[in-house]
C-alpha cells in the first residue's frame, strides 16, 4: 500500500514538476525582455541626451562669443566692450530669471497664451523625461537647452540700440521683455496647450521648428521699435561709422554658423534622422544665402564684400530656422537663396530709404528673414521629413502648400502676425516704462565719449599708448 502511494506521489510530482519548471522559465524570460527593453531605452536616452547637451553648449556659444563678436566688430572702437557686455550680461541675467520662473512661464501648463507657475524655482523639473516635450531626455536637459534660446533672443535686439542705450536701462528692458514678450510667444508655439502649438493642441498649429517666429521675428521687430523710439545715433547718417573690426565680426559669424547646428538640429530634441535633416537644411540654407547676398551685392556694387558674405550667412540661417526640421535639402537651398537676396535688399536699400537707425540690422536680418522663413515653411514643409500632422489612424497628413496643405500658409501667417503684434505692443510698453523710470538713452557727452568708458569705465584696446 505504501509503495503504491509513493509511486502515485512520484507520478504526480513528475507530472507537475515540468509545469513548475516551465513557469519559472517563463517568468525569467519576461524579466529578461523587460530588462533588455529598459537597456534599449537607456541607450536611446544616452544618445539623445549627449546630442542635446552638446546642442545646448553650441547655442550658448552662439551668444558668447558668437553674437558678442559679430556685433562687437560692427560698432565703433569706443563701444566694443559695451556691445559685447550686452550679450554677456544676458547670459547671466536670463539664466537666473529662467531658473526662478522663466521656464515655468514658457513650458509650464497654463493658458493658451502663457504658462503657469507650477515649475516656479524649477519645481518638478528633475532628471526624468517630460514626455510631452522630450520623451527620451531628462527634463533638465530640455530646460537648459531652451534656456539658451531664451538668452540669445533678447541679445539679438541689442543690435538695434547699439552705441546709445544705457546699460541700466538695457538690463531693466531685457527683464521685462523676456517676461512680457518671449515667454508668452515661446509658450504659444512650443508650450503645452499653446495657441499656435502644432503638436500639443494649438488652435492654429504653426510650424516653427527652432524659433523663426519665437526668436527672430519677435527680436527683429522689437529691434525696429527700439530703433525708432530711441532715435538715431548722434551724427547718423552723415558721419561715417564703419565697423571698427570686420575681422571680429567674421569670427563671430562663423561661430554663429557652427553654433546654429545646435540651434536647429538640436530642436529635433533627439539624435535621430530628424536631427540629420535639420542639420543638412541649416547648412544648405546658410550656404545658399551667402551666394544670394554676395551675388546681389556684386551686381549692385561691383564688389562682393566680406561683411556682405557673413551677413548673408546669418540671413540664411535665420530664414531656415523655422523650416529646418520640415523641409528637404533642395527647398532649404532655395529658402536660403531667397533670404540672402531679400535681406540684402532690406538692409542696403530699404533701410537707407526710410532712414531708421537699426544700427546692426537686427530688424533687417532677423525680423525680415524670420518672417520670410516662417512663411516659406508653410510652402515647403513636407510630411516625409517630419510627419507633424496625422489623421485619426496615425497616418501622416500633408504639411505644407506644395504637398497639398494650403491652409498651413494661413496658420504661418497668423503666427507671424501674432509675433509682430506682441513684439510691437510689448516693446512699446516696456520702452515707455523704462524711459520714465531709468531713462533709455545715454547723455550726448556719454555717447560721444563712448559707452565703454561712460557705462563700464573701460577701454577695449590699449594699443596706441605704451605702458
Amino acid at each position, binding site marked *: 500500500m505504501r509503495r503504491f502511494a509513493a509511486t502515485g506521489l512520484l507520478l504526480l510530482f513528475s507530472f507537475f514538476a515540468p509545469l513548475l519548471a516551465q513557469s519559472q522559465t517563463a517568468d525569467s524570460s519576461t524579466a529578461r525582455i523587460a530588462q533588455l527593453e529598459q537597456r534599449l531605452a537607456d541607450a536611446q536616452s544616452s544618445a539623445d541626451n549627449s546630442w542635446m547637451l552638446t546642442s545646448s553648449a553650441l547655442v550658448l556659444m552662439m551668444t558668447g562669443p558668437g553674437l558678442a563678436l559679430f556685433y562687437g566688430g560692427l560698432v565703433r572702437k569706443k563701444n566694443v566692450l559695451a556691445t559685447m557686455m550686452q550679450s554677456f550680461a544676458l547670459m547671466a541675467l536670463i539664466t537666473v530669471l529662467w531658473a526662478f520662473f522663466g521656464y515655468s512661464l514658457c513650458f509650464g501648463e497654463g493658458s493658451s497664451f502663457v504658462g503657469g507657475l507650477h515649475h516656479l524655482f524649477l519645481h518638478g523639473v528633475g532628471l526624468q523625461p517630460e514626455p510631452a516635450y522630450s520623451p527620451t531626455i531628462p527634463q533638465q536637459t530640455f530646460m537648459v537647452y531652451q534656456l539658451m534660446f531664451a538668452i540669445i533672443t533678447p541679445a539679438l535686439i541689442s543690435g538695434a540700440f547699439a552705441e546709445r542705450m544705457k546699460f541700466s536701462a538695457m538690463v531693466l528692458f531685457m527683464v521685462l521683455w523676456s517676461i512680457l514678450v518671449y515667454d508668452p510667444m515661446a509658450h504659444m508655439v512650443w508650450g503645452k496647450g499653446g495657441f499656435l502649438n502644432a503638436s500639443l493642441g494649438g488652435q492654429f498649429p504653426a510650424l516653427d521648428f527652432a524659433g523663426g517666429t519665437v526668436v527672430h521675428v519677435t527680436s527683429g521687430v522689437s529691434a525696429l521699435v527700439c530703433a525708432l523710439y530711441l532715435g538715431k545715433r548722434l551724427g547718423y547718417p552723415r558721419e561715417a561709422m564703419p565697423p571698427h573690426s570686420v575681422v571680429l565680426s567674421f569670427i563671430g559669424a562663423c561661430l554663429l554658423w557652427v553654433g546654429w547646428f545646435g540651434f536647429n538640429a538640436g530642436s529635433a530634441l533627439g539624435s535621430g534622422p530628424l536631427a540629420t535633416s535639420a542639420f543638412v537644411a541649416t547648412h544648405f540654407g546658410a550656404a545658399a544665402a551667402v551666394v544670394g547676398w554676395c551675388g546681389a551685392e556684386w551686381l549692385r556694387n561691383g564688389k562682393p564684400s566680406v561683411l556682405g558674405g557673413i551677413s548673408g550667412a546669418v540671413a540664411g540661417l535665420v530664414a531656415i530656422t523655422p523650416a529646418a526640421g520640415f523641409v528637404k535639402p533642395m527647398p532649404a537651398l532655395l529658402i536660403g537663396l531667397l533670404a540672402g537676396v531679400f535681406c540684402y535688399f532690406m*538692409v542696403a536699400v530699404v533701410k537707407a530709404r526710410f532712414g531708421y537707425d537699426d544700427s546692426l540690422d537686427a530688424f533687417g536680418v532677423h525680423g525680415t528673414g524670420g518672417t520670410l522663413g516662417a512663411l516659406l515653411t508653410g510652402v515647403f514643409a513636407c510630411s516625409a521629413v517630419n510627419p507633424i500632422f496625422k489623421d485619426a489612424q496615425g497616418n501622416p497628413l500633408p504639411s505644407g502648400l506644395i504637398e497639398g496643405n494650403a491652409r498651413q500658409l494661413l496658420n504661418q501667417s497668423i503666427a507671424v502676425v501674432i509675433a509682430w503684434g506682441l513684439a510691437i505692443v510689448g516693446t512699446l510698453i516696456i520702452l515707455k516704462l523704462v524711459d520714465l523710470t531709468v531713462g533709455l538713452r545715454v547723455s550726448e557727452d556719454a555717447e560721444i565719449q563712448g559707452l565703454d568708458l561712460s557705462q563700464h569705465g573701460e577701454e577695449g584696446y590699449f594699443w596706441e599708448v605704451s605702458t
Partner: protein
Amino acid sequence: MTKVEAIIQTSKLEAVKDALREIGIEGMTVLDARGHGRQKGHTEVYRGREYTVDLLPKIKLELVLADDMVERVVQAIANTARTGKIGDGKIFLSRIDEAIRIRNDDRGERAL
C-alpha cells in the same frame, strides 16, 4: 640745424630708409599719418552704406640734420620716394633752435 619733415607713400618707406642709410644717416623718427593733398580718396561700402575715405595712409619721416647734410638728404628722399603720380608727398624744412642728447646732455650739432 635743420628739421626735415617728409610725407611719403607708405610703400616707399623701405626704399627711402635704405637710401638714407647709404648716405650715412643713422637717426630718424617714423610716424604713421593720414592725409591728402590733391589726391582723391576712395569709397568703401559696408552693408550698402558708402563711406568716402579721403584721409589716406601716409608715412611721415622726421630728421634733424646739420645744415651741410640737408640738400643730400632731400635729394635722397625725393628721388627714392618719387613715382611721378599725385600722392607722392612733400618735404618741409624748418630751422631748429637747439638739440639736446638726453643721455649725456650734449648740445648743438654734437647732439645730432
